[in-house]
């Protein structure tokens, strides 16, 4: 539960009546411990054929722009398993450190040259000593310089309120302070830019909102991993 309330602390000595002071303290404690009714958004993403779209990131940005980012977000993990990034799409908030454990018995060389984060974890096995801190919002495309077919995405959100759709194409973003939000959706194969998917919901009026998007997805074309039959010597 996030409480957006401020308590003024007086630096001058108490001059009010002791009973009044006791009442003020009690009221403050009551405010701090009372649960502000939270709101939630259920977002559903489908494609043109009505099929659920997994790995879509839904972002809820307060319309007033007033967000309090976590000062020390927990470390997140993007694994490399069987020469693929797992998960394929990772959504994090700005400032999150991400570690890239290599769970294969071969070495990987993870990199990105996306504007939101340029980095390189040179050829390594096991768990890198240092995480990569994603300190700028945007989409970071991951690659491995040894295995060109490996592609992953880190979506770095400027809002702490976001979620990623599951296989059913749905995500619930809960514990939202009651206020108006601008919602967006991002998917690596989406034909349209994230900004054009904007929708607004006002959670000050309703505590639950359902939002749906239909995305047109581009075919996923990545560097081929499957083998190609060799050609015999024919000269």
């Amino acid at each position: 539960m996030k409480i957006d309330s401020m308590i003024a602390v007086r630096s001058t000595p108490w001059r009010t009546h002791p009973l009044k002071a006791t009442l003020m303290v009690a009221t403050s404690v009551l405010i701090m411990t009372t649960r502000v009714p939270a709101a939630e958004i259920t977002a559903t993403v489908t494609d043109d054929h009505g099929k659920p779209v997994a790995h879509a990131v839904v972002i809820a940005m307060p319309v007033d722009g007033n967000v309090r980012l976590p000062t020390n977000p927990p470390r997140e993990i993007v694994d490399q398993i069987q020469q693929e990034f797992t998960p394929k799409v990772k959504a994090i908030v700005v400032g999150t450190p991400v570690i890239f454990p290599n769970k294969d018995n071969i070495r990987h060389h993870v990199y990105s040259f996306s504007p939101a984060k340029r980095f390189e974890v040179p050829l390594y096995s096991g768990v890198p000593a240092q995480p990569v801190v994603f300190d700028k919002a945007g989409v970071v495309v991951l690659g491995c310089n040894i295995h060109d077919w490996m592609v992953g995405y880190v979506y770095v959100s400027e809002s702490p309120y976001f979620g990623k759709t599951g296989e059913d194409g749905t995500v619930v973003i809960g514990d939202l302070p009651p206020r108006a939000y601008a919602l967006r959706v991002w998917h690596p194969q989406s034909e349209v830019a994230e900004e054009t998917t904007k929708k607004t919901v006002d959670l000050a009026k309703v505590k639950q909102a359902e939002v749906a998007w239909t995305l047109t997805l581009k075919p996923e074309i990545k560097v081929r991993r499957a083998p190609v039959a060799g050609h015999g010597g024919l000269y």
Partner: protein
Amino acid sequence: MRRLFTLAFALVTSITPPAHADGWVDVDASFIDYNNLTHAQNAEDRRPDRALALNLSGGHYIAFSGRDGISLTLDTRAEVYRRYSGLDFLSVGGTATYKRKFGLGANVPWILASVSVAHDEYRANLRDSDRLRIGSEFGRRFSESFDGAIGVALDRRYGKSDIADLPGYSGRVFDLQGQSAHARVGYAPSERLLLTALLAVRRGDVESTAQQNYPILLASDAIADDPAFRDPNLYAYRLPATTYSGTLSASWALSDRSSINFSYVDSRARAGYDLAYNDRALTLSIAHRYP
């Protein structure tokens, strides 16, 4: 031949990649339709046939850095013909390929150099030989769906048989060498389909099996009786030629580890004395990679 096959199979399947090396075993089985196995100019000398081929290749890739590394493979190929069993062969060899990327990412240019050696053992001994191929390729990927490369190669085939049939002519018909250059483009219109086109030109020795005729005697520097086609009138000739070949192939990925492939190869060899032959091979194959 059976012992050689057993040895090759044991070698490939026993490859144990060292720690931190990419290891794999590729298997592909093919059905091939050849329209001119004799590489003959005249229609009466052409011998078409169909063959089944099995490739078994095991190897591993050792990365020196994130930008370069070497792959070592052990390659075996067996081919069995429907009519001309003398052409049945087993080839066992190895390839070392060094590849370097000029930068970071899938779309940076790269260069590779490779050396291949192989021993081919045929049911009819005339074609038994050792082969050496040294090649280099330069290429780059332009997008996820489009890539291209150009390359050059030197090939040398050391024929084992040296039974001369005509005075003044060598019997080493399958002692061949040549130089080639090629250009290749690949286009993936979808996640599963990969289309490839390759154009190559090769200058060097070729072998042609035909009945005796004056132009081929003039053009050749080696002649031998060729028993593979069971026709006493056919002789194998070695002659210098320029070969132009084009390959179109389509590969459909069944999964990340397997694919079904079709290729069409058209080769046109041009030699002196107005000698020329055209070959065509159609191949349908299934490829699988372990793990």
